[in-house]
């Protein structure tokens, strides 16, 4: 194929620019709110740029975005919940993933099917039973409850992906270690795990991001303001705005941007691997 001619180049660039405009439009809509220091409630007139450029909404959000809770507490809650959920999903699922990747045993096919099915269920199908169960145990309103819900949701996905990661490690490497007298556990710890680690980290990252940006379900569980996460405070602000419009809309915008930046950076860095993981790719 030859390089495209310049009229074609122009048409291509125009089409791409149009798509780019579509991508940017809602993001810019949020940005212009975030940087507008003049908003005291809902925006009341159409503007393409902020009326008064200001970083004030960012400072406000970085101080106390939701009620009188400090930003640090929200961030801390978010990080605790997300890290714990990802860690639990990985740590408790890893041995099952290895078993599915390496051994043949009765019921393996059925197990894989159940695994894939549970990995594609919506979060809400875990919320209903866990809300009731955790209420019975009287721990529903704690951060621990959130960790349990998110890790229950993320675990099937993580197991599926770790299985794929283990399968990419050639069996021969393990067999060589086996001949040298290493047991299953030794060869797993010193050979397979290190080789598969990058993919496992990515699987954990996806679980982390899910817990980090989830909030409607957390919103049903948590009762005290101290246990609110960053994502939940956005939802709280949105509901508040919708009902009364009391707070400046700039805060939603600035908080959304602050929250998105780390996620976007992670996605841009890991785009290819994340795509593979999210397609439930079978590495075999």
């Amino acid at each position, binding site marked *: *194929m030859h390089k495209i001619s310049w009229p074609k180049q122009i048409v*291509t660039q125009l089409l*791409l620019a149009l*798509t*780019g405009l579509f*991508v940017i439009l*809602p993001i810019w*809509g*949020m940005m212009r709110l975030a940087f507008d220091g003049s908003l005291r409630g809902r*925006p009341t007139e*159409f503007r393409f740029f902020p009326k008064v450029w200001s970083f004030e909404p960012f400072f406000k959000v970085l101080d106390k975005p939701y009620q009188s809770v400090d930003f640090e507490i929200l961030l801390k809650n978010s990080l605790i919940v997300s890290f714990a959920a990802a860690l*639990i999903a990985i740590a*408790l699922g890893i*041995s*099952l993933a*290895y*078993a599915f990747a*390496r*051994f*043949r*045993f009765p019921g393996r096919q059925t197990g894989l*099917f159940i695994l*894939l*099915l*549970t990995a594609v*269920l*919506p*979060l*809400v*199908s875990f*919320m*209903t*039973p*866990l*809300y*009731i169960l955790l209420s*019975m145990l009287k721990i529903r309103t704690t951060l621990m409850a959130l960790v*349990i819900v998110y*890790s*229950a949701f993320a*675990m*099937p996905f993580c*197991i599926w992906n770790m299985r794929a990661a283990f399968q990419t490690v050639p069996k021969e490497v393990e067999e060589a270690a086996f001949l040298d007298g290493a047991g299953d556990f030794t060869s797993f710890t010193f050979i397979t795990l290190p080789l598969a680690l990058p993919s496992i980290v990515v699987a954990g990252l996806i679980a982390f*991001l899910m817990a980090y*940006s989830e*909030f*409607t*379900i957390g919103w*049903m569980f948590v009762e005290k303001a101290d246990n609110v996460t960053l*994502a939940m405070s*956005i939802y709280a602000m949105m509901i508040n705005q919708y009902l009364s419009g009391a707070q400046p809309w700039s805060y*939603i*915008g600035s908080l959304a941007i602050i929250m*998105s930046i780390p*996620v*976007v950076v992670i*996605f841009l860095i890991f785009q*290819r691997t994340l795509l593979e993981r999210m397609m439930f*790719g079978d590495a*075999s």
Partner: protein
Amino acid sequence: MNRFRTPFRILAILVVAALAWGLRARAVTRLPIDFDEDDYLRAGQEFSHLIRTSDWRGFLETNYRPEHPPLAKIIFGVSILSAPEKPLTPDASTTASPNQYLPRDLVKPARTVNAWFGILTVALLSLVNPLGGLFLAVHTFTIKYVSQIMLEALPALTSLITVLAYLQSKKQKSKTGWLAVSSIFLGLTAASKYLYCVIAIAILVDWFLDAKRSNDLSRYYRHILVWGILALVIFFAADPYLWADPIGRLKESVFYHAGYSSGATEVQSAGFPTWQPFVWLSFAAYWWHDGVFPFPFDPFITILAIVGLKRLWSKERLYMLWLGIDLLFLLFWPTKWPQYIITLTVPLSLAAAEGLKLTWDNLLAWRKNRKNVVHIPYKKSETVRALPWLIPGLIAFAVLTLFPLLFQLGVSFTDFSVASLRDGLQGGLWPAMFGASHIQSPASSLEFPFRQTQVNFIGPANYLPALGYITGPSFYSSGILIFNILWTVLSVSLQTTLGLGVALLLWQRGVRLGKFWQLLFILPWAIPEMIGAAMWFNVFQWDWGWLDLAIQKYGPNIPFAFLSAWWDSASGLWIVIYLIVALWYGFPFMMLAASAGLKLIPQDVYDAAAIDGADRWQMFRHVTWPLLTPLLMPAIIIRGIFAFNQFYLFQAFYDLEATLATTSYNVFNTGGLGHPLGGQFSLSAAINILAVILLIGFVIIFNRWSKAGEGVTYA
């Protein structure tokens, strides 16, 4: 074997007809009076009076509700002749609620004559296919509308006869007789209700295809001219109201429908979206009338029909044409009353019969194949080695993931709700899940919302109401499930189209700024879904969104201003706004998947195609597309699952009943957004279980396609 075939067939027809008779007789006595029944009874009374007084000239000027031709109404008049004459039912507007005080001794004979037409239709269909007859016999919407004083029963029968006679003519050497029969019955159909004449289009298309194959188009035009004129003559003969002023009155009655669909308040306030016919097909009259129908067969018949579509087409093209053209017509027709689907339940039942046979054949083949598959035996030593890895993982998986799902199944067998929250949490839920009940007869308490203060076991009794809730018109939505499926299909096809388009643009050699564009386009994928939803909410939200503020400032003529008005669109155009947002979310993923797939296609294939003189479109159609599809398919299905489970988008737009996930959440939610059924925990659990069942289907399809994709390597 053949000797028993005929008696067996006759027996099957008799059984099906008897079943149809039983169900329709029950419906005739038990169904409450519905909209329009008073109108048609009044029309019947007028005709009955004319016959009693032998006032034959009166027929020329009598046709109450003249928008519909009078034949079916005359039949009502004949049917109530033997009943004592009653004062005329009062004239009421079409918006009036059903008149519950109609005289029973008039309603019964009028309904019964309709029911007999319905039974005849079933019997006739059983002649063609007993299984199809069975499905038509139990279809609850069909039972309902042919057992009430509605205009559906007669044209449903005559349209079937029209089709059967036409099909007979195709088999016979001398076609004229059967063609005349089909033409006569088409005329009678037109004289009963215009809508049923859609079958004429199906017949003409089928006829045309035959004529084209035998290169005999000029004869075809002569034939259809005669056929059509005969039908017109019969129509005219069976419609005495037209005789006095044929053109004027025909015009009046036809144009009434155009005005009715756009102007009548009941059509507007019903607010049925364009896709409402699909909703009626997935719903059943069972959920409207307690104790009239045995079971909501309709959605299951529809599912089987979808399975059997292809086989029906290869078996008898005309039925498929009937189904397809009719459905297309109903989608475009602005009025969406449920009785309109009676025009297509005959081919639907036939397709369902084919679907059932196909499923059965597949099951047999699967069983046979299973025996033939060589099973590699499991090594005991390997299983033992796997155990130390399996056991801890299985325990964790069972406790965290499987147990909640099983617990949910248990909850769905109870009537646990916010009213019984205290009892349930203090230990009342466990015994209830295993059969304990505080109320005498749990079945009688089945009324949404549940208000018992103690949890009771109600068994699978939640599931039929839950199925009715997600398939039929509910608080904020008309058919959640159909919207959910439509949403999945439309949003994923849009995302795939744009994603593939952009990938192809970037794939051209020498495109400038390629890396930059790709990085920019990934943004929507990277932004968390809820934040993306908030961003679009800020654009589209009513009154305070960017778009509405711009309209307030610059007037309603700015580009895209029409989108703002679509929020209130009764025909469901608001789905376009959601689709725009979903396109934004989803196209980057498809773009990346398509780019990854395109890289795997070797250059040689294109060089070879170029040597053969293929142009750009041919290259895409015959090289890129077939090579890309197996690679793209898993990504499409993954996106499909995401779209099916879409939650945050609708939650951010305060759409409480869009997808199953949103519905389940808001039915569960006790406070906050205020769904009327908020706090119905067991209903939420049942909806989740239904969603799991649907997702099993998705996963099976995914498995099949990802295995197909694995075998493909080009490099």
